[in-house]
């Protein structure tokens, strides 16, 4: 269990716990080092020999875990570094004199660099501060021109140059970055004057109740939460208050007038007591509410690392945590305490069972106890010397499990991360799968192993993990120059749609196309097709489509609307003469000019013949003849005809009395007799040219019979004409014909003669009981005999 009592030292309301004996072996301690330690027990970066500015000796950049285990070490070859700092995702930022910021991962691998702008590089960096806010990690720079430039989030850089500070002649005595009202601001002290700089203005401010004997503010620090501010004046007073400068919490005289090395807040969340730590060479003073200060000697050069609930003190040999004693601990360890916790501890000492007391609490829900035990176990695991993440429970809760897992992943502690996920029952998608993905991304970058080995290893490990995106892993492989491996990994991706973008990026277009088709997502196929269209030359593009019918048919759809000519080329390539024929027929309908239409139809005819589709060819030829005929007649007779179907043409001709021409069409186009007779019948009846109709009826035996003659006359209300044809109707249709003209007796006669039961019934149904009484009797008799037969 940590903290161990023997390594804990009580300093009034504070306690100092030794976290680690540092594993590193630093000859000169932290002297002459530029040091940056990340909060939440993060890694430590040292730039050794930084202050020795000799061109011959390059400084050495070293990265360690919180327990001092080496992670990386390499000579610094770039420009002069003004400041080191860590991002929220454990990346190291090195701010150079010229305003360039270099980003390294915690293994010393270079990731990228960015610039803080022209103005900064021209006037050089004077001082710099790296800060964290809800928007990410930010960088603030004071330039040689005594102006501040700020970027709130280094992952989305928007440089802001803050307004000038009035009367600033030389570097300000001290400054700090604040986050207030969702904005990052700079608090600057120039002598005894204090200013707040935001995007638009520089506002002078006065801390309430600051003792008047101070002529200059020499140091300041802001609490971890940005809520509190501490100022140290040249008179040795520490003023503590809220960072909005509305309230003073206390003021303490340290009685030391030399400027300190470092100052930090040491305060747990929700604590009532303000306390700050000021550090000079070999001396640490804790100031709080009362006038008394706590002094403490440091043997070695040290660095203060502010945390959410305390301050860590790192020296050349030790790593300690200074924090306010938690209320619970106080209750337990207070002399003669009778608090439940203290009693429980006593009981534990007696019986050596931690959860012993729990048995006596019947109404106490066990979840809290269980989850706390889990948390503690995880904390112990990560605090282990070999891992070196000395988190307190408060910090752990603030940072969340997800972030802790991320941190473990950054440190390549994959098995531990997976254990933590499993132990805390993190949903697989956010937990184990995510870790495995990171592991795989790291794995694929290992140059010494062969593609096969890596692919196999990855697939075996990731086999039953849910929600793994193999395409992401493959992308990593591709980015580290292993295209073959990337393709192998993509094979494991179950969603083919996910594979496509990377395949395109890797210029594996045929594979991308077939994967897109496999996915069944038309839109994705289109994406690939359009990409290929721009990427390949036309011939290759067509060849590729040819092997992929689905893509081809989709592309044809597109061409139908957008590129008619390409469509034609496609059909040509496939020797699809049938479709080409159809294409020309369609085109001919879009053209207004007759010559063009005929020419297009001729092309269609040629194609249809090539397709051995004689039927379509002949029909199209007929159409060409018809068009010419229509045009000729249009010119001669001034009758609108072009574009009509054969039938409509004949109808028009007949209706205007051009019988000869209609007959000509009838013969030329081998119009079936029936059709022509129907046509002529209708046309003549419509014109009520009964004389002509009669003549026509006598030209030869009607192929459609004579019932239509009767019906058409009746339709035009000419019973007289209708009757003329009744006698010509075939025996089967006689009854119908008689009925059509309303000749009941004739109908009855015919029906009886034919001895057809159903016909007799039909006639019967049309008879009315009053007028056709006799007829009905006859019919009924006939029906009876017909039924007998």
């Amino acid at each position, binding site marked *: 269990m940590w903290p161990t009592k023997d390594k804990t030292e009580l300093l009034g309301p504070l306690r100092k716990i030794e976290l680690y004996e540092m594993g590193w072996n630093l000859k000169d301690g932290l002297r002459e080092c530029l040091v940056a330690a990340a909060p939440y027990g993060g890694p430590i970066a040292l730039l050794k020999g930084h202050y020795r500015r000799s061109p011959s000796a390059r400084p050495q950049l070293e990265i360690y875990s919180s327990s001092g285990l080496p992670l990386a070490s390499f000579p610094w070859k770039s420009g002069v570094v003004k400041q080191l700092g860590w991002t929220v995702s454990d990346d190291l930022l090195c701010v150079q004199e010229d305003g360039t910021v270099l980003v390294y991962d915690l293994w010393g691998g270079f990731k990228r660099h960015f610039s803080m702008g022209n103005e900064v590089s021209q006037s050089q960096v004077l001082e710099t501060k790296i800060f964290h806010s809800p928007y990410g990690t930010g960088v603030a720079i004071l330039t040689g021109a005594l102006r501040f430039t700020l970027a709130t989030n280094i992952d989305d850089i928007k440089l802001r140059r803050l307004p000038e500070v009035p009367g600033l002649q030389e570097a300000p005595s001290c400054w700090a970055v604040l986050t207030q009202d969702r904005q990052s601001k700079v608090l600057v002290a120039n002598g005894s004057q204090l200013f707040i700089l935001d995007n638009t203005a520089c506002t002078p401010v006065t801390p309430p109740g600051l003792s008047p004997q101070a002529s200059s503010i020499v140091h300041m620090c802001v609490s971890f939460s940005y809520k509190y501010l501490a100022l140290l004046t040249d008179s040795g007073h520490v003023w503590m208050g809220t960072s909005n400068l509305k309230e003073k919490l206390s003021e303490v005289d340290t009685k030391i007038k030399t400027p300190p090395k470092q100052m930090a807040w040491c305060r747990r969340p929700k604590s009532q007591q303000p306390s700050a730590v000021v550090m000079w060479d070999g001396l640490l003073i804790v100031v709080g509410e009362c006038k008394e200060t706590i002094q403490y000697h440091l043997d070695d050069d040290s660095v203060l690392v502010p945390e959410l609930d305390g301050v860590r003190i790192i020296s050349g040999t030790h790593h300690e945590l200074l924090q306010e004693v938690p209320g619970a601990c106080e209750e337990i360890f207070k002399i003669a305490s009778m608090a439940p916790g203290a009693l429980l501890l006593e009981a534990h000492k007696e019986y050596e069972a931690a959860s012993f007391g729990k048995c006596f609490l019947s109404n106490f829900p066990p979840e809290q106890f269980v989850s706390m035990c889990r948390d503690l176990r995880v904390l112990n695991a990560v605090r282990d010397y070999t891992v070196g993440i000395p988190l307190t429970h408060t910090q752990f809760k603030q940072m969340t499990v997800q972030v802790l897992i991320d941190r473990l992943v950054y440190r390549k502690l994959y098995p531990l991360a997976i254990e933590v996920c499993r132990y805390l029952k993190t949903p697989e998608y956010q937990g184990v799968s995510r870790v495995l993905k990171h592991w795989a991304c790291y794995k694929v970058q290992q140059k010494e192993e062969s593609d096969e080995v890596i692919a196999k290893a990855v697939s075996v490990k990731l086999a039953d993990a849910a929600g793994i995106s193999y395409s992401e892993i493959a992308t990593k492989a591709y980015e580290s120059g292993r295209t073959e491996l990337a393709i192998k990994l993509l094979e494991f991706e179950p*969603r083919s749609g996910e594979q496509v973008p990377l395949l395109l990026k890797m210029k594996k277009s045929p594979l991308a196309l077939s994967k897109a088709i496999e996915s*069944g*997502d*038309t*839109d*994705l196929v*289109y*994406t690939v097709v*359009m990409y290929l269209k721009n990427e390949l030359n036309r011939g290759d593009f067509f060849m590729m489509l040819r092997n992929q019918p*689905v893509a081809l*048919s*989709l592309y044809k*759809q*597109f061409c139908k*609307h*957008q590129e008619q000519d390409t469509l034609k080329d496609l059909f040509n390539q496939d020797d699809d003469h*049938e479709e080409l024929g*159809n294409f020309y*027929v*369609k085109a001919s*309908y879009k053209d207004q000019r007759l010559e063009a239409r005929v020419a297009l139809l001729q092309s269609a005819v040629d194609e249809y013949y090539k397709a051995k589709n004689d*039927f*379509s060819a002949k*029909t*199209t030829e*007929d*159409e060409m003849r018809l068009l010419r005929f229509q045009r000729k007649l249009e010119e001669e007779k001034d009758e609108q005809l072009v*574009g*009509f*179907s*054969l*039938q*409509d043409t004949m109808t028009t001709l007949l209706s205007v009395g051009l019988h000869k021409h209609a007959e000509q069409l009838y013969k030329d*186009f081998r*119009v*079936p007799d*029936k*059709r022509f007779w*129907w046509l002529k019948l*209708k046309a003549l009846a419509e014109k009520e040219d009964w004389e002509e109709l009669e003549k026509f009826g006598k030209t030869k035996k009607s192929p*459609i019979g004579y019932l239509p003659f009767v019906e058409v006359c009746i339709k035009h209300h000419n019973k007289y004409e209708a009757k003329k044809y009744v006698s010509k109707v075939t025996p089967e249709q006689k009854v119908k014909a008689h009925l059509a003209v309303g000749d009941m007796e004739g109908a009855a006669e015919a029906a009886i003669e034919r001895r057809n039961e159903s016909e007799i019934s039909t006639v019967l149904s049309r008879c009315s009981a009053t007028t056709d009484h006799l007829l009905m009797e006859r019919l009924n008799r006939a029906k009876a005999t017909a039924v007998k037969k």
Partner: protein
Amino acid sequence: MAHTEWKDAPGLPDFSLLKRLARDQLIFLLEQQHEVDKLYKVELKPIVSSSDQLCFLIRPRIQTVKWISDLVNADKVAGRFRRYKIIFTPQKFYACETVLEEQGVYGDVTTDEWNFYILPLDDDILSLELPEFFRDNFLEGDQRWVTTAGSALRLLQSVYGSFSKVYGIGRCAKMVYESWRELMEDGEQRTRQPEFAKVFLVDRDVDFVTPLCSQVVYEGLVDDLFRIKCGSVEFGPDVTSSDKSIKVMLNSQDKVFSEIRNEHFSNVFGFLSQKAKNLQTAYDKRRGMDIQQMKAFVADELKGLKQEHRLLSLHIGASESMMKKKTKQDFQELLKTEHSLLEGFEIRECITYIEEHINRQVSMIDSLRLLCLLSITENGLLSKDYRSLKAQYLQSYGIEHLLTFANLRQLGLLEEQQAGETLTVMESKVGKLVNDKTVGKLTDAFSSLAKKSNFRALSKRLALVPKSGEEYDLRVPRDMAYVFSGAYIPLSCKLIEQVLERDGWTGMEEVTRMLNGQEFAVTARSKTDAQRIVLVMFLGGCTFSEISALRFLGKERGTYYVKQME
């Protein structure tokens, strides 16, 4: 669909939720473009408006995007500066963006998506309103709507609860299922909701026969004659007996319509006149009322009666108009031919009838419909018939229909039989010896030898065509065949009935083989079978006759069928 027989039948989910959802999303999208000046239909026509912002709400069709590009370019030429926004619904397609790019207006327009999937047309009908689904999917082989259908299913599931069982048949159905499953896997796992329905997915091309038949139930007839669009119909002056057309919503809110929509047409008139009498009686109650009663009557009943009166007169008007068109000899003969084709009886006569139909230019669409029905029921037309009928059709309606025929062939709706060579030779030899009619009969015999017609076999296997000669009382339907005057049970509905009865495809192997397979049945995790809601999704559209048939089935089995169509 009220049904008292089954007391434990579940209540239908409240689809107004979907409506509200869609409306809120749309308002959210349009919010950025407040103060709408005027609404236009998108077409290729210059927009006369002084407004400097145009917002287009469109389906992602290449043609429409081209029109918009042309409008933008025209504005550019005229030196007009406007802002343009295109909202694609249900989703944006890459091809559309490519068109914008190629037309050089990509930078001028902003685009957005509105994930609108389902339009509830009635208490038991949901629609994706994608008329292009059929053409895109079955003719052009473009599966772009598959994910849309999958997303629609996911939406339903997220709103109303999960599905206990999914059945389906057809390639597209399979793909839709896969797409939906993938969406469900990708999305976060919700807390388990109670199961809400079984789902049956069916491709339209599994059953082409049903939509080719003339409809004879009231709602189907209204659709055939007046076209029902998005649940509403426009009745012309001949129906309204005034000089104005009236647009009417057709759904279960319409008390008159809801009672006759599923009825065979021959029953409708009787029903309407009875209704008119009842109405009159209700009106007559006024007589002899005292003031107090009269007051109550005016307050409570009169409005309802008036409304009912108005609807009744509309439906009577519509029925009269139907009568005029449909009781004519032509229609009777058309029905007779269809029934013969379904039965496979007197095919020669049918062909002659179709020929005459074409020659007389009775109806362009009906002729094609008959041709397709002939081809499907007979497993393709004989070469000789195919050519002659096609030639005649082209003579009647113009050669551009060469393309129509090409498309129909592509779809498998109208095909030429590839008869075995020996048969053709024999046929021509025999043909020389005997007269025309006999040849016809012989050819029929030969073709049935050459290739077994799938429809015939299916029809036999599933008993789709009841034995002729039996009386069928249309007033008291005994099975789903009543929607086609007792002559044919819709294949699609029969499949649904069988599969639900068997809880899967077992025992129907031969049927599925004849339907080209692609069937599936998937059970969700649990085994509860309490709910009786069945969601039938027709991929590529469905007819009102099928809806009526399913309503009938639902009534029989105490099941609700919710239909979804494209």
